[in-house]
């Protein structure tokens, strides 16, 4: 799995490419928590996520809660079909803010 971070209009966009599983989720978790730790809005781009498991979802939840406690935005963008399915199964699709694009996320 590859992780990339870039900044756009004051928001940190963390994008993942590949499988977020037990092996890679520690990296996912670290990347997300580091980004949230910078005190900026964080958009997790899940367009390239071919697979995500409960440990990956747990990383997203943890980052989401941390951002919330700091009153910062944490938004999932371009969620791939596979990732959306797992979020739905976990009933988290209503918990996260999910946007189709960066510009939509900036507008929220």
């Amino acid at each position, binding site marked *: 799995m590859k992780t990339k971070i870039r900044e756009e209009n004051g928001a940190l966009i963390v994008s993942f490419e590949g499988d977020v599983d037990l092996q890679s989720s520690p990296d996912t978790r670290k990347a997300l928590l580091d980004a949230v730790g910078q005190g900026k809005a964080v958009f997790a781009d899940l367009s390239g996520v071919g697979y995500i498991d409960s440990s990956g979802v747990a990383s997203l939840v943890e980052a989401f809660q941390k951002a919330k406690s700091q009153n910062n935005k944490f938004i999932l963008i371009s969620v791939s079909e596979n990732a959306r*399915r797992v979020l739905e*199964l*976990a009933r988290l699709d209503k918990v996260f803010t999910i946007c189709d694009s960066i510009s939509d996320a900036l507008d929220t």
Partner: protein
Amino acid sequence: MNETLSNQKTGETTADILTLLAEMGQQFAATHDIGSALNYAIEHIARYVGAEGGSLFMLEDDDSHLCCRACYGEVDIVGVCINADQGIVGHCVETLSSEIVRDVKTDHRFHKGVDEQSGFVTRSILCAPLSVKGESFGAIELINKCSGDNLFDTADLTLLSTLANSAALAIANARMAEKLVEQERLARELELAAEIQRSLLPDGNEGLPVWGANIPARTVSGDFFDYFEMDDGRIVFNLGDVSGKGMNAALLMAKTISLFRCLSKSIEHPGRLLGLINTEICDTSTRGMFVTMVGGIYDPATGRLRISNAGHEPPLVRDVHGNYRSLPAEAPPLGIDPDLTAKNGFPVANVDLDGGSFYLFTDGVTEGYVGEGEMLGSDGVLKIIDGSIAEDISVQLQRIVSIISESGIALRDDLTVLGISDGPPKACRSETMRKISPPDKLVTKDMKKCDILASIKTCSSPDRLKLIRNVVHDGAAIAGFARDIIPDIVLAVDEACQNVIRHAYDGRTDGEIEVALYSDGGSLIIEISDQAPHIDPATIKHRDLDDIRPGGLGTYLMEETMDLVQYRPVAENKGNILRMVKTIF
């Protein structure tokens, strides 16, 4: 008697007509066959008036037609129907007046249709309506006078009118009697239907920790509940309410409860089960009827409950400390939207009763009257439960039912309740209790009869998970699963393997994990085995989805995506075996 009748107008008319009227009345009163009484009437009236032929027409088909139901004379026209506004008969019925067409040649109202059909030559007609209390339901028509110039006169018309009036009264009475008999028959049939319906409900809990009751507001009910024990000791249950209360609701109830009972023997995922029933009801339901329903499975060995709620009043869970929470429906009632039957069916909620209890009602309970204008309400229900929590579940529910059914106020709606009472909380369950696990139905499954699709043995390292996922992906494809279902199966196996790595091996990466995929034609069976220390399945935590926090999701995802997730009994120090089943449909 016939001789007396043919002596009309020879001096004893009054006595004769009285005799005829009395005879006719008796015929109608005594008969169960209106048809033969009508024949008697038309024959005797025609002969008494001295007509060649006569026919008796009745309004039928929502009063749109007049059909000949009895006739006398050379030509038989029984069964012939004309439009209700046609001909002399139609005119008589419409205007409630008697008519004479002394000579048809000079009267345009004469409808030639019947003559054309029968070959009879009509010369003169008398017609009188059959009416009671200003409402006509037919007419008597006489054709051609036997004597003289073959034409009727007004004296004949007066005579026919008198006779027709009496005949009408007799016919109306006979029809009413027939209707009463029919109503009685329907009531008997309704009672039979109610008996059949009662037989669809379980008749005793036979020592199970579940109890239910149904009291119909009318003879038959649109409510239902059911429960039964599976071979492995788990209890399948449901409770529902069909929109409406009459026979149509009872029939849909019968269909729903039967579908549930039948399908629940092969599909153990309540959400998928309700999804299938939804499709079935949507396909065949009429008049916008729908069903609100909760279906679920309870495992007395672990205290775990899985339910799916389709638009029904939220079930209540009471924990051992007396705190309540409700489980609102996450999906609409069954029979409304066929598209809702997605691949995984209706949403499922998992509940750990852990010594608590579970209650299901229909709105007849919460909206039931316990006094003048006073409804029981949810608060009233809770009060009764709290007050009788030390009693058996059946006693608790009986109290709720009786406070409404014995309030002296007629039931507005069917009353239906179902409750489950979990054993002692897990912490108090003795070791022996935990070990007495019910016979595992899967153990009896002969795996030798199943095809092995794939098998992989690898080490308990996270970097092998992708390999396992690939094997499962391809195995599920070979088993015949649709492309959109396969990721769910892959996820479930991956989560199970993670549990093995993280919990059974406690993070050790040198352990052994084996994943084997079998197919028995209809379903995919996956076994995940390890050599780690034995783990008591009852101690495995299930995450409560209302509690948004990282972690604890894996087991939930496995149960959400697979039809069955079950730990198999394994001899001590022989590791753990988890079996998961997914049915192809």
